[in-house]
Structure formats: C-alpha cells, structure tokens
C-alpha cells in the first residue's frame, strides 16, 4: 500500500503507541483523584502539556486538551461569541476554512450572528485589505486557518494577528494542519487561540488541544466536573494525551529533517506528474504552501473515479477533504480559489509524510498517467476537446 493522505490522518508512530500503553491497564487512574496513582497520571498529563506547548512555542498553561481539532474549533468560536455577546455579533472567517469552522459559524448565523466569509486569491490567500475593511464595531472574532488542509496554502497569520489586535478583536486560527508541519511560535504577537489535533502528527485520533493565550478567557464548551482547570470537563484522556505529547516531542526533534526529506519527495512527485500528464494544474500557493501537500486538478475527469482507480492500485489519496468524501459538491476551497465547477471536480490531493519513500513517489508517478488516460478516454469533455 502507498499511503499519500497524511493530511486526512497519519498512522500513530510506534513510539507514540509505546508511550501510551502503560496508561491503559496499569497507570489507569483517574487523573483527578487524590491517591498516589492519580498523581502519576497527572504528572504524565502535565509532561505531555509541556511537550505540546514546546512544539507550539507557548506556555504549558496555555494548552487545554480536547477531543480533537473539531472540538477545539467549535470551542474557540462559540466561546468567543458567548464571551463577547454583549459587544457584538459579527464574526469574520474565510471561504477556505475547514467545515469545523464553517459549520460552527453557520450555526451561529442561525442564532443571529452576521458572518463575513473573506474571499481568497487564486492561491488561496485571504485578502488582508478586505479583512481590514470587514472589521466593524460589532466584530468580536476573526477565525482564519493557519494552513489549508486541501491545498496547503499558508495564511499570513502574523499580519492577521496584528490587524485583529490593533482593532481589539479576538483572533482564532485553526492550526490543525500547521501544527507539526510548520515551526510555530505562539506568543503575544500571534493569535489569541489556536486549534491542534494529535492525529495529524502521528498521534492518536480523538485528542486535540486549544491554545488559549494567557490573559484571554472564554467560557467552557463542554461543562462538567471541572477538569483542565475548569475549562474543559470530562475524565482526562490520559493515554491519548500522553500519546499526543510524545508525538509532539518526536515531531519537534525531527521536524527539520522531515520537512527537508518529505518536501523533496513532494517536489519530485509534483515535477513528474506535471511532466507526464497534460492539462493539469497545481493548486495552492507556489511558495507559501505546506511542504507535504500536492493538490492538482486533472482536467476533463472526475475526482472520485481517479481515487477509485488509485485505490485499485493500492494507493490512498483524496479529493477534497476526507470528511466530505461522501459529498457530491466539489471542494469549497477549490471553488473559492476561482476554479470552475467541472475543473474543481477533478481534484486530487496527494499529501505525504513520515513513512513515504522514493519508491512510493515512483509508484504514484508511474501509475497515475495511465489512470488519467483511461478515464479521459471515456470522458465526453476530453474527446470533444481532442476532436475540437
């Protein structure tokens, strides 16, 4: 099998699983209890918090563990809205956000919030002047992602933070794809909140975190026993959090080498595909793009049929984002960067990671042209084009 869908999820690093194992059946205590074994669990959680904070370039007490990136996004946005309810009901986000952000904003819209969806340029970068113009008196939150999951485009987060801060507006960034792929340094000049998810960096699924900058406070989203200093209730997922911490630690140690190696593989793959397949475009920003992501539109054919064909060859890839692969709509991200409906429909995302090898690149680049050829042969658009 060749797995090239690391933006959808990553396998747990074996070292991560190793680190989690003692916390299932042996050190299983509830981290909120008073007895000795609970103290051990608590210590493990706090060590994990330090590791995650260290990768994020923030303080441990700024990290609050959640059940994943989706919950973090929901919490940040709903929390900011609730907190600043009295001040206004306007939220600014972008047209290329993950559904965890979009659908949370849509739910707020049904409750009377006004949502501005910032347009992006053809590379997927948000328009800063539009952002500036959109901030009104009643604006309470800007939520713009750090790096896009589909096309890999990296947003000018520093500038957005500056702008939001200068206008007294909270700024949340969905950093789920950035965390572990880009060196982050979340400090007082950056966003007020940032969402992370462990399973995008070789950690377990079902664990994530919300960074909340010191001095910022939003009400809890999941309420109950008062875990995570009262900010996120629910019995602490000790094993999951320990795994997240270990994953962050490994990434921190290996990030530079990984970016170099994986980035190189991606570049070779891109080059080969562009050389061998006609009528194909690369999506995303040419430079400010995640090193591992290659998103292309292959004209005249449709995405799912490409994926199925790749699957028959044992290659895992995606079209649009994984969570919407049951969906019929072409990717909202590709539409936002200005691609016509039928071109957006032919998108293929190859996202690479830790376990990819040169062989994988060779396999994909040797198999893909034949698949494209075959699908184009039965495509009415391709045949029309050829015959004129």
């Amino acid at each position: 099998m060749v797995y090239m869908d690391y933006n959808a999820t990553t396998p747990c690093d074996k070292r991560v699983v190793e680190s989690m194992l003692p916390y299932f059946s042996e050190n299983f205590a509830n981290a909120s209890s008073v007895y000795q074994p609970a103290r051990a669990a608590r210590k493990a959680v706090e060590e994990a918090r330090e590791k995650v904070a260290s990768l994020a370039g923030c303080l441990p007490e700024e990290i609050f563990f959640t059940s994943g990136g989706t919950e973090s996004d929901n919490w940040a946005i709903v929390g900011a809205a609730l907190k600043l309810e009295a001040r206004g009901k306007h939220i600014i986000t972008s047209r290329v956000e993950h559904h965890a952000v979009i659908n949370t904003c849509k739910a707020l819209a049904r409750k009377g919030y006004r949502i501005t969806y910032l347009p992006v340029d053809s590379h997927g970068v948000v328009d800063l002047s539009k952002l500036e113009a959109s901030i009104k008196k009643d604006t309470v939150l800007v939520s713009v992602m750090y790096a896009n999951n589909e096309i890999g485009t990296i947003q000018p987060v520093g500038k957005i933070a500056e702008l939001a801060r200068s206008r007294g507006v909270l700024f949340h960034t969905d950093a789920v794809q950035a965390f572990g792929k880009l060196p982050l340094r979340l400090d007082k000049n950056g966003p007020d909140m940032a969402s992370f998810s462990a399973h995008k960096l070789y950690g377990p699924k079902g664990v994530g975190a919300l960074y909340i900058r010191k001095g910022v406070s939003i009400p809890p989203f999941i309420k109950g026993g008062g875990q995570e200093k009262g900010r996120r209730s629910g019995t602490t997922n000790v094993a999951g959090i320990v795994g997240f911490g270990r994953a962050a630690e490994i990434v921190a140690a290996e990030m530079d080498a990984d970016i170099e190696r994986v980035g190189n593989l991606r570049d070779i793959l891109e080059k080969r595909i562009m050389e061998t397949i006609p009528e194909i475009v690369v999506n995303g920003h040419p430079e400010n793009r995640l090193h591992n992501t290659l998103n292309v539109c292959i004209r005249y054919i449709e995405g799912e049929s490409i994926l199925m064909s790749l699957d028959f060859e044992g290659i895992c890839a995606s079209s649009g984002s994984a969570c919407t692969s049951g969906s019929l709509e072409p990717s909202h991200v590709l539409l936002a960067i200005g691609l016509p409906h039928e071109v957006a429909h032919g998108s293929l995302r190859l996202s690479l990671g830790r376990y990819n090898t040169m062989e994988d690149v060779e396999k994909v680049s040797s198999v893909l042209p034949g698949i494209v050829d075959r699908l184009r042969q039965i495509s009415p658009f391709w045949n029309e084009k050829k015959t004129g």
Partner: protein
Amino acid sequence: MEYTDKVCEYFRNPKNMGRIENPDGVSTVGNPICGDVMKIYIKVRDDRIEDIKFETFGCGAAIATSSVVTELAKGKTLQEAEKISNREVVDFLGGLPPVKKHCSLLAEDGLKAAIKNYREKKGAK
C-alpha cells in the same frame, strides 16, 4: 459509502465505452444533483439497438451504471430499451450507497434521451 464488488468490477472494466461515428441517436445529459455528464450514442436497425456506446464524466457509480445500461440496452428493441429503469440498473449492480442513488438516473436519462433523439431525427427525415 461502500460500493458492491459488482460496481467496482464494472468501474474497472466497463463495456461499450467510446463513441459511435455517425450515430443514429445521441444524447448528452447532466446530473442535476452533482453536475456529472454522460453521452450515449446508439446505432439502430429495424427498431432494435444494434450498437450503443457511452462517454461519461463522473464518479465510479456513474461509470459503472453507464456500462450496465448500455449492456442491458444492446440488442433490445427501442420499446424494450425505453423501459429500462434506473432501478433495474441499480439492482443489476447489487445496489448503490444512498448518496449514490442519483448517479443511476444519469444512465436511465441518457438512454431515453438518445432514443428520443433518434426518433426526432427519423421524424424529421
């Protein structure tokens, strides 16, 4: 979303793909739900579909159902062929996932439109 083995088989090895030069009937239908497109070409002799081919821009189900509908239609009289329903195509494939039910409409519509086109051309002659 799970496809049956049969869908996968027909997707991998579709029959009757391509064009017919100088067809007696031809149609281009678009799926109102997803925007996918199918073209059907037919050759008719003695009110019977002698040859049939398709071109499809669409998902796996669209390609598989295109293949099946052409196979079902081939050799049938026009009256018989007009009765082929998307239900029949879906059953032939052992079912389609709920979100993919609409894909089979493309096949039924495409075939009917091609027959209609043949009749119109003939009538016009």
